[in-house]
């Protein structure tokens, strides 16, 4: 298959007939005529393709070689142009479509956000919209510096931002501000207290005076390391207590589930309705409101006309699918699923190791109660600012 650029030059398919048609191929190659897709039909007949502009040269060589040349087909080139020129309506339509497509590339039809991690994409888009940049904006008229200032005023979490426009697709690149590290005065008093109750196993005090000792049972909030120090001469000074206190801790977590679960099950025939969105204008291809229908799941899918990542057009096709459902009794109670969730919760809460754990399953009326009991070892030291 020939490339489009080749087809624009015009391609001719020929049949060559003569005593020794391969001789014509040799002569053509020597004259710089490009030939391809040649096919020998028999000892005296060849089929070959070449560019339309080189046909007169080949015809001249054929006469010299005593061969006959017959044109079988023409693709593209002048012949195609002639055919198009015979249809002015098609030409006008094509020109209008090209003009519209060219004009549409000066407007933004799709906005994407990159670099937003802690700040949500929707917030960046809203800030852009409030600053006068969004779907339908005429991008050559956008001053990036002004836009940056406006957006950064609205989003103080940003350190920098810019908008790159490619075709009709805009990408807002944002760089979030790095949080300033917590600053503290080393001479300001702070104590270490227990974040939860437990049995102290080991203490590592880097600054401050220990207020508890290994083997001692402490309750939540109890002082572990004091920031109030007394020297041998009786002089008092205040420090910021630092250190770690490893203690055995015990957890009890409960999960309560109903004995019977209600699940959605598809019921009836799903219905679909469609809409076209041109920029910000929506044309519903149905009668009635867009409110959700009771007892139906509403699933919306949108297709934007264009090439993904290259360019977008303002036209979007929206499909709303309504799937009716009924509520029925679902699967049986699964203690395994509850146990997995409880264990995940425990792992998130413990700042150390889980030494052992066990589950007990019980039933209370219509409810299942699953209990997780765990024995852990963790650092329970928590900083408390100010004097104790």
């Amino acid at each position, binding site marked *: 298959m020939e490339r489009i650029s080749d087809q624009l030059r015009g391609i001719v398919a020929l049949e060559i007939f003569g005593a020794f048609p391969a001789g014509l191929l040799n002569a053509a*190659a*020597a004259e710089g005529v490009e*030939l*391809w*897709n040649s096919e*020998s039909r028999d000892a005296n007949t060849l089929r070959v393709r070449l560019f339309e502009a080189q046909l007169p040269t080949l015809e001249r060589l054929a006469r010299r070689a005593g061969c006959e040349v017959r044109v079988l087909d023409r693709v593209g080139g002048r012949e195609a142009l002639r055919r198009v020129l015979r249809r002015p309506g098609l030409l006008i339509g094509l020109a209008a479509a090209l003009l519209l497509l060219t004009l549409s590339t000066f407007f933004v039809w799709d906005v994407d956000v990159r670099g937003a991690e802690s700040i949500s994409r929707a917030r960046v888009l809203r800030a852009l919209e409030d600053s006068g940049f969004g779907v339908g904006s005429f991008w050559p008229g956008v001053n990036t510096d002004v836009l940056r200032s406006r957006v950064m005023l609205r989003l103080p979490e940003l350190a920098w931002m810019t908008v790159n426009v490619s075709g009709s697709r805009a990408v807002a690149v944002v760089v979030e501000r790095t949080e300033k590290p917590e600053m503290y005065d080393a001479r300001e008093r702070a104590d270490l207290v227990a974040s939860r109750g437990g049995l102290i196993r080991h203490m590592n005090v880097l600054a401050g005076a220990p207020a508890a000792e290994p083997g001692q049972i402490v309750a939540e909030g109890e002082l572990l390391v004091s920031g109030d120090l007394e020297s041998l001469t009786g002089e008092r000074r205040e420090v910021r207590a630092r250190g770690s206190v490893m203690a055995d801790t015990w957890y009890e977590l409960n999960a309560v589930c109903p004995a019977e679960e209600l699940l959605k099950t598809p019921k009836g025939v799903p219905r679909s309705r469609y809409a076209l969105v041109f920029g910000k204008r929506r044309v519903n291809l149905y009668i009635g409101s867009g409110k959700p229908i009771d007892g139906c799941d509403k699933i919306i899918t949108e297709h934007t006309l264009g090439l993904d990542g290259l360019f977008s057009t303002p036209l979007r096709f929206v499909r709303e699918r309504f799937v009716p459902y009924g509520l029925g009794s679902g699967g049986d109670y699964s203690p395994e699923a509850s146990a997995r969730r409880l264990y995940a919760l425990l792992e998130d809460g413990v700042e150390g190791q889980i030494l052992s754990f066990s589950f007990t399953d019980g039933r209370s009326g219509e409810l299942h109660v699953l209990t997780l009991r765990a024995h852990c070892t963790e650092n329970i030291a928590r900083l408390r600012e100010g004097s104790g």
Partner: protein
Amino acid sequence: MKATRDLPAELAERLDLPEELLPGRGRLTLDGGRQALVEGQRGILEYTPERIAVSFGREKLTLSGDGLRIKAMNAGELLITGRIRTAEWG
């Protein structure tokens, strides 16, 4: 009587030069028996779907097979496609 020496070939061998650089020497690159690139060709001597013979001046290459076609051609090269069964230098 001493045999006629192939002086250019002998010179190329002594100077450790690739033989395909010598005038009248062709080069054939076969790709899986379905495609052949012939370089240094001076002209097609025979062209049928079963047989294509190519001249290099001093040498001749004959490719035999089925459905042989010249896919592309210019003054020095030929790209041949089809099921190539034998290649014979003469």
